[in-house]
Every structure is written in C-alpha cells, then in structure tokens.
C-alpha cells in the first residue's frame, strides 16, 4: 500500500498550503515487509485457538442463589448502617423524647452495644450462610 495523494488531496484540508510539507513528509513513510515466518506464526496461533476447548461458561445457575443472598445481605447491611447513622444522633441529642416505634426500632436498633453486637452477629451469620450455600452449590456437595 504505497502512500500516494489520494482522493482527499492537500487542497481539501484545512490550512492546505501550510500543510504541504507535513503531507509530503508523512506520506513518505517507509514500509516494512512482514518477516518470512509471520503468516505461519499467525496460522499456528489460529490453529491453537481453534483446537482449544471452548471456554467454560460462568455457572450462573449455581452462582445465582449465592449472589442473591449476598446482595440481600449487602442491602440489609447498608440499611443497617443508614439506620444507625440516622438514628444515633437523634437518641444522643434528644434523650428525653420517646421515639415512636418504627420498623427499624422494632428491629432493635435503639439499643447500645447490645444492638450493635446483635447486628454484627446477624451479619456474620448471614455471610456465613451465604458462603456455605454458594460453596455447596458450586461443589455440588451438601
């Protein structure tokens, strides 16, 4: 593919007159020839590629339950963190106001260390269950 002045001649480009020198220099790029074994090397690689077994598809069927559980755990953890962030300042700044029972309150968020411990234990338990479930599904063993 010897560079020549093609259909877009210098005159059709912006700043054409000033660009002639650049055009001339960059059009005269040296060409290199492929080395003698190039095509053979490519074909070897292609044959290896063709002979290789197809890639194992990701086991969605097995992984999906674990991923769903993990997602749920994550959502619960985010909700817990948000609830703690929102709720703790309220309890510390207005200690005398009794908070109305809420869904988060009913989950036991208004405790101190006890509730934090409970949440931690719950999170660990859920994480453990999800890991065990994923592993048992992946290995096929109960």
């Amino acid at each position: 593919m010897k560079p020549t002045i093609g259909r877009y001649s210098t005159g059709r480009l912006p700043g054409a007159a000033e660009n002639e020198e650049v055009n001339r220099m960059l059009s005269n790029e040296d060409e290199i020839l492929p080395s003698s074994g190039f095509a053979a090397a490519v074909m070897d690689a292609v044959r290896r590629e063709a002979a290789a077994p197809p890639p194992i598809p990701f086991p969605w069927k097995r992984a999906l339950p674990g991923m769903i559980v993990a997602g749920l755990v994550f959502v619960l953890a985010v909700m817990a963190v948000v609830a703690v962030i929102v709720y703790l300042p309220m309890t510390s700044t207005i200690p005398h106001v009794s908070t109305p029972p809420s869904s988060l309150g009913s989950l036991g968020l208004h405790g101190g260390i006890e509730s934090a411990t409970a949440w931690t234990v719950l999170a660990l338990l859920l994480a453990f269950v999800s890991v065990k479930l994923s592993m048992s599904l992946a290995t096929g063993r109960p």
Partner: protein
Amino acid sequence: MSASEDQSAVERVLAGDISAFEEIVQRWQKPLINLAYRFCHDRGRAEEMAQEAFLRAYRGLNQWRKDAAFSTWLFALATNLYRSELRRIPARTVSLDEIAEPADTRASDGGLEDQDRNSAVRRAVLNLPSKYREALILFYFHDMDLTAAARSLALPEGTVKARLFRGRELLRSKLPQILAVPRLKEA
C-alpha cells in the same frame, strides 16, 4: 485483493475450513503490520500487534457485518487494538524539545537532510496527544482518505478533520525549524 475473495475466505473459515484464514493473513499481513508500525515504530512490536489483530479477527469473524467491506472491519478492529496496546504500553519516544532543537550541526547551516527531517516529523507525531496522533497516523496510512481514516477510528469525518487540523497545528508549533527549512533536493 477483491472484496469477494475476502468474503469467500471468511465464509469458508466460518464453515470450519481454518486454512482459508491463511488467505486472509497473506492478503492483509503487510497493511496490518505497516499500520502497527506507524503506531509504534518498532518492527518486532508491530508484528506482535498485527498477529494479535489477526487472532482477534479470527475470533470475531462472525461479527463482520457484510454491509461494510471486510478491510474496513479489519482495519477498525486492528486500529482499536493498536490504540489500546499503545495506551497500555506507550511507544518509545523522545521529547518534542529534543526534536525541535536537534543536535545535528547541519541544522545551523541550512537545514537537515530530508531523511532526518522526515524522521523528526514522524517522531513528533508519536509525541502528540493520542487523539491527534491517531488521526494523523490513520489519515496518512489510508493515503489521505478521510473517510477511510474516520471509519477505522469509528469517528465522524468532521471530528477526524478537526483533529487533523489541530494535530498539524501542534506539529507546526513544535517543529518550526524543521518545517520552515526548504528541502535541499527541491528544484
């Protein structure tokens, strides 16, 4: 080098005849290696990148929509690969300052030889920001065919044209000495 030969070879490869891919390699090895060479100016690396381009073409052969020429698809694929490879490991270059003020003593008394000046401009192109560099490389590789360059880069022609303009401006600002010197061999 006809489009129907390409299409026929592709169809045979897709039908399971791997050896037909060799026709494609034979036909396009030189352009693909030379395109890679313009991106990196390193022969060994150019061949490695071209080999990877052929492998990717083989893997994605069934994605070629026959509404465009096979060569258009192949060049776009190769360009995309070369651009990512060069982003991953940039080509070895020298700074533009070194190019603008060459140590060659001939520069002070009348200018550099053609070959040196051409070489300095090519090195300067490699030092340009990637979007201008790629536009310039593709434009000159495709024999100054703006449409082909735009297709290879998967960009609108207007964008490529603007990048060419800006790239040339940058070159001129970085190489005032070299581009101002008249050619020695000029009549």
